[in-house]
């Protein structure tokens, strides 16, 4: 496998520093949320995970479309790396959401549109990654995962809309106008921390995918 590039190392280093500082600010500097108190601090992990999981899925979708048009294998590597990152961030989103739901709503899980569509989105992309794991031919694997990624991504809005018609108890999304400016700053700070980590991860994931491809595309060794 190729060694990590300077950009990849830099992204990890910047991401890690920002993450430590951002979490310090979230825990000790920013005031507690008026209604939820100290529990509200989990939002500084929850919200960036939500934003960045969508960013990761969007990159994966873009790369999948790119692969279908160009056939360039590097696009497939980007698609899988970002889908993996999206799945991990999405799992973090669901886990922190559940931890937050218990003291706030009194339940670990509720069938709210955002929760339901996040869980559906997570399962859909887990399915895409599992499909990849059972296909051994690199060309076929790339095509099939691109097709299933496109299907999974375009389904997100209609899933959200349909479950929203079904039921909703989630808080209305806050915006910078309804939030304390310190809170907005820390949320964005943490989002940048996760963004840099995501960029580092994309680099690592792309290298791993490329090395798997190279290994599986190599001609069989000749017998002596």
């Amino acid at each position: 496998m190729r060694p990590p590039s300077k950009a990849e190392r830099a992204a990890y280093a910047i991401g890690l520093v920002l993450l430590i500082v951002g979490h310090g600010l979230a825990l000790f500097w920013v005031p507690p949320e008026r209604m939820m108190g100290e529990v509200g601090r989990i939002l500084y992990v929850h919200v960036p995970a939500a934003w960045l999981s969508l960013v990761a899925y969007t990159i994966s979708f873009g790369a999948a479309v790119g692969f279908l048009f160009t056939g360039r294998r590097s696009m497939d590597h980007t698609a899988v790396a970002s889908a993996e990152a999206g799945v991990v961030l999405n799992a973090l989103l669901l886990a922190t959401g559940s931890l937050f739901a218990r003291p706030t709503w009194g339940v670990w899980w509720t069938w709210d549109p955002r929760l339901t569509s996040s869980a559906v989105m997570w399962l859909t992309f887990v399915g895409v990654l599992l499909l990849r794991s059972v296909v051994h031919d690199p060309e076929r694997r790339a095509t099939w995962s691109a097709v299933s990624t496109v299907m999974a991504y375009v389904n997100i809005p209609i899933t959200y809309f349909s479950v929203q018609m079904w039921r909703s108890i989630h808080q209305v999304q806050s915006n910078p106008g309804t939030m304390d400016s310190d809170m907005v700053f820390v949320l964005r700070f943490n989002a940048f921390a996760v963004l840099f980590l995501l960029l580092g991860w994309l680099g690592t994931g792309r290298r791993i995918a490329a090395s798997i491809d190279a290994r599986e595309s190599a001609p069989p060794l000749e017998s002596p």
Partner: protein
Amino acid sequence: MTGLFGVLRREALLEWRRPGRWSSLVFFSAAVVLLVAFASPSEAALREQAGGTFWVAILLASTRAVDQAWQVDLENGALEALVLWPVEPAVLFYAKVLALTATLTTVALATGPLILGMYDAPLRGDVGTLLLLLVTGCAGLAAPATLLGAMTAQARGASVLLPLLLFPLVVPALLAAAKGTSVLLEGDPMGQAPAWLGILVTFTALHWSLGGLLFGRIVEDG
């Protein structure tokens, strides 16, 4: 159009020569209807969830149906021969989806009266709208099931992945069909059925278009 009818005729012949294929699906969905009753706390709850149970049975049957449909095509290189036919892959896709829609509609028409009788569900709404919802729901499930089935059937040991890929993807269709059916069974006093039908039509249109565009890549690279 000739190509579409040619492939459709082939699919119809396959079903005609093996009636056990669709009849086993009817019994499969009947078994689901029966089993769900054991998980229900009361007969009143059973009545309330009739619409949802009906569509879960159809969805489960669709995974078996699509597995069966692709299995035949993978035997003796039939899929390669189909791809070599002088028809566009999209035509092949639409023929397969229409055939699966017809199969699922048959299963649904057989399961419907069964669930009405066994769950003692009322039928107060407009039967025409209910039938429209039923056909649209089957068409909506058929498109992604056909596309994903084409992949999972070709990969060794991946048939278990079909439900995992299909179920989360068809959540909007399942939800809209189940809620639409439930409100129609109750007579649709709040006029909600058109909204659910709208979601179902949007989902169906999206996946029929997407499938037509993407199917060629799956069978040509397969």
